[in-house]
């Protein structure tokens, strides 16, 4: 990326004041990136900005409370940072934010689907429009638009909302201006029994690994999550679909008015359960009822932590 060097320069400048800067670098094969912790000058060069940088690095921030941390963010990641700041889960003074214009990230499961078996990846060459992946000496040419993550297609915040250093040219807000809930709306039109059955079928393969929770930047309860506690005892530890689904509802409700739809929960799911839809549904209703979007404005209060005496958009049942 063009501005990668510029970004490195910014980090170099800020690093002496910081304990660590979190960015991305190459991973076990050319098709993957991994979070990269920059402690010293020697780590800076490894930093890479590419469409492979799927991870929302804001997830690390609450766990590093008290340290001076730099973090490189995509537009969507920056909303998580805003939300964390808003909820005072991190302190603005401790955080240095590096932003850049993001053109979208690649959905590995789409790549997998397009290529079939992804074994020994030898190289991955990317241009603005396409990428060529060589797997077991066989080159596969893919259009970038085909393997772009769903959320990126309707991205409304490509530039970091908040940053101390911003490199590259800002991308003007893309259309559509409204969140894209077409898939969700299609699902909502199904018969109730189909919806009910759908979740049971999907959640059936959940292995209760809680990767969704670990990847979520706003799941800040961590070890104290009510999924595994005895007091309160919301869920059993049995392998049953009821508790698996219940956990997803808990997650969605706890995210109500807070979730920025970064999609990390779904990306992290090893068995590809489409759990982002539950959060999208919650967000859609939050937008409808409270005209509110999370992680956009530092001064906002999440709607479930406040109220109005008269709620314009709530019509109560007339008995």
């Amino acid at each position, binding site marked *: 990326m063009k501005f990668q060097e510029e970004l490195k320069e910014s980090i170099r400048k800020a690093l002496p004041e910081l304990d660590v800067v979190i960015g991305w670098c190459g991973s076990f094969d050319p098709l993957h990136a991994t979070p990269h912790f920059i402690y010293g000058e020697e780590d800076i060069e490894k930093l890479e900005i590419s469409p492979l940088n799927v991870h929302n690095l804001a997830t690390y921030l609450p766990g590093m409370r008290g340290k001076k941390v730099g973090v490189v963010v995509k537009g969507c990641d920056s909303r998580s940072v805003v939300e964390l700041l808003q909820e005072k889960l991190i302190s603005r003074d401790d955080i240095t934010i590096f932003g850049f214009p993001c053109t979208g990230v690649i959905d590995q499961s789409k790549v997998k689907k397009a290529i079939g078996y992804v074994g020994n990846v030898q190289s991955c060459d990317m241009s603005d429009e396409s990428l060529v992946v060589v797997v077991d000496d066989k080159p596969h040419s893919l259009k970038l638009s085909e393997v772009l993550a769903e959320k990126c297609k309707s991205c409304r915040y490509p530039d970091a909302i908040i940053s101390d250093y911003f490199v590259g040219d800002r991308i003007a807000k893309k259309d559509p201006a409204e969140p894209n809930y077409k898939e969700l709306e299609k699902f909502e039109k199904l018969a109730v029994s189909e919806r009910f*059955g759908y979740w*049971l079928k999907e959640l059936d393969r959940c292995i209760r690994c809680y990767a969704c929770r670990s990847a979520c930047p706003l799941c800040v309860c961590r070890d104290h999550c009510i999924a595994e506690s005895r007091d309160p005892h919301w869920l059993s530890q049995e392998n049953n679909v009821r508790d698996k*689904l*219940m956990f997803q509802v808990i997650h969605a409700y706890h995210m109500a008015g807070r979730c920025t739809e970064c999609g990390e929960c779904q990306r992290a799911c090893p068995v590809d359960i489409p759990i982002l*839809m539950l959060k999208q*549904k919650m967000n859609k209703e939050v937008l409808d009822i409270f005209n509110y979007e999370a992680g956009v404005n530092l001064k906002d209060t999440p709607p479930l932590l406040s109220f109005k005496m008269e709620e314009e958009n709530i019509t109560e049942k007339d008995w």
Partner: protein
Amino acid sequence: MPVLEGKELRIVGFLCNWCSYGGADTAGVGRFNQPTDLRIIKVPCSGRIDPLFIVKALMNGADGVLVSGCHPRDCHYSEGNFYARRRLEIMQKFLPILGYEPGRFEYTWVSASEGQRWQQVVTEFTDQIHKLGPAPKIVGPEASDTLSLMQAALK
């Protein structure tokens, strides 16, 4: 105890101690006849109600859930029902995606003096749930346990 087969459905009520529980008492003192399906759980305030209780009840097999608190501005704790209104509203709007009909869960406000209103709310809500019929139940640990039952029911 299981519900009376063919007669009752499982309806859970969460009522705030100060207004609605009192309203239900007032209805009782006034001998205002009501359907027998509803079972009331008393909580100090509608603001105490975690909407997840409602989901829990439904997933555990309730056919309907009714929440009632003090009228807005009359909350014993001044603000509890204002928070409750937001939380309950969002959960009410969310539930359909899980496959629960919108009418399975309702919330309302009944004051301690509104015995008649309480009678009306219970009667109407019970009626509404009976119209919807039994809610889908999750049985057994595997999805297939439930799904095959659902399919059998369709046939």
